């Protein structure tokens, strides 16, 4: 079992993924016009405003986990310079994602709350920002939603490539999608999981809490979310089966997950709250066309918790290749 990366990187990978997923949901609402169906759209509001702070928090945790880079922070600049390293790509992606998502969130707040716009406009010390008010708010917002989406996909995929790039050193992390397809599984799994946790946060949890269980506005959402959960289940199953087939320490990782030291985390903290429960209640919600308070909040919390433990599980179950 690898011990170099523990909880902090796990939380960081999770926050990066969920932030990226939430922004993608908000951007989808923006581009498909769902954002404007009603006066107030909590999913788009949270999906646009929360990713910036989430990813900032994740990045701070990443820095906190560094050795010399934490004590001598100027060394962090060196991390921008070595382009063969996936971590360097990640540092660039985060550096670009954070300001873009913050601006997107800011514009979304201005759009959603006219009072905020008014307040800003009447501050004397903000008079130099006058040029901003001539920009078309929604069109500018869309530009940032678009750039943000591209970066979000990059962030979500990068969290997986970071692991798969270790190659033969930790065979479980570099397991392929299928033994004969040379695409690593982790980036694919993490991208789907990012979308699922993003939806869990912004739709199941926030929308249910904000606009109440009786009124689920986008009827197709439970179906879409079920599809994501289904794909994620499939990918997770393929990961474990491919790892078992590959043998060696990858198979050992898979056995520890299915029926070994990590089995409790896997079945009780990931499969049950993040897959089985949300799938069942989403089927029910899809039939009814709305979430109940229990199904919405329950699956939202469950999916988010499971997303965190999934990152943790994959980190701790990485077993170095035997020598």
């Amino acid at each position, binding site marked *: 079992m690898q011990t*170099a990366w523990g909880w902090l990187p796990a939380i960081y990978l999770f926050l990066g993924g969920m932030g990226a997923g939430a922004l993608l949901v908000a951007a989808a609402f923006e581009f498909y016009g769902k954002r404007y169906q009603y006066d107030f759209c909590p999913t788009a509001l949270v999906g646009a405003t929360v990713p910036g702070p989430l990813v900032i928090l994740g990045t701070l945790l990443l820095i906190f986990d560094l050795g*010399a880079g*934490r004590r001598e922070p100027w060394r962090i600049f*060196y991390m921008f310079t070595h382009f063969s390293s996936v*971590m360097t790509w990640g540092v660039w992606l985060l550096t670009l994602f954070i300001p873009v998502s913050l601006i997107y969130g800011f514009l979304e707040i201005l759009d959603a709350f006219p009072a905020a716009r008014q307040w800003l406009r009447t501050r004397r010390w903000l008079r130099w920002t006058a040029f901003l008010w001539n920009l078309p708010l929604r069109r500018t917002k869309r530009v940032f939603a678009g750039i943000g989406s591209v970066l979000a996909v990059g962030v979500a995929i990068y969290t997986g490539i970071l692991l798969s790039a270790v190659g*033969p050193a930790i065979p479980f992390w570099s397991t392929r999608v299928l033994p004969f397809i040379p695409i690593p599984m982790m980036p694919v799994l993490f991208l789907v999981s990012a979308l699922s946790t993003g939806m869990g946060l912004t739709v199941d949890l926030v929308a249910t809490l904000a606009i109440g269980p009786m009124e689920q506005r986008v009827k197709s959402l439970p179906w879409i979310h079920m599809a994501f959960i289904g794909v994620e289940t499939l990918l997770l199953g393929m990961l474990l089966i491919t790892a078992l087939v590959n043998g060696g320490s990858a198979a050992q990782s898979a056995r520890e997950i299915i029926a070994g030291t990590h089995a409790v985390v896997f079945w009780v903290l990931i499969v049950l709250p993040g897959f089985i429960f949300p799938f069942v209640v989403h089927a029910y919600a899809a039939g009814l066309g709305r979430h109940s308070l229990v199904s919405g909040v329950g699956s939202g919390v469950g999916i988010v918790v499971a997303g965190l433990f999934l990152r943790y599980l994959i980190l701790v179950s990485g077993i*170095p290749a035997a020598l």
Partner: protein
Amino acid sequence: MEIPRLSRRRFLGLTAAAGVAAVLGVPLLKREASLAQERPKARYALIIDTTKCTGCGACIEACRLRNHLPEGVSYIRRIVKGNERNPRFLMIQCQHCANPPCATVCPTHATYRREDGVVLIDERLCVGCKYCMQACPYQARIFDEERGVADKCWLCLPWVLGGGLPACVEACIPGARLFGRADDPQSEVAQLIASGRAKPLHPEFGTDPSILFYVIEEE
């Protein structure tokens, strides 16, 4: 209003310029000149004969002492192979790969490979992200908690450049460790490698170990 606006713009400009300079300046940082340049023509080889190795661990301790590592920490570690009645010992340290994944994944320029094949860590550039520790398939790296940087076997390079031997080679009691120059066809190491008895460990990892070789009796 005019004056503060000007100075703000100036300030922002200066900040941006400083940031760009910092980022661009990093690759220009010079490595310790002596270690990066000296005698690049040599090709070293360190061969461990596992048929002679008794697993006594003298090399582990000698490495620890020469490199001033704390109690119980060394660049070399012992793996026990074979069965209980006939144990075989595999001493693992950095293999000095020609295609080192530790250097590929390093987000800074801290890990680099000299022209003579020795893989080194410039600890002034290391941020301590531990990515290299994950990517080394030989698990040859350790972490210096005190200084917060990655660390590993450096082939006792200053001693070797001065004509001496790595500490592990000096210390080996049964003489299971051979050190020499592979670019000299007369040397014992070159002949062992040419005969095919000394082979890199786990070539299937694809990292192409270039300095460490092992003589392993097939069973």
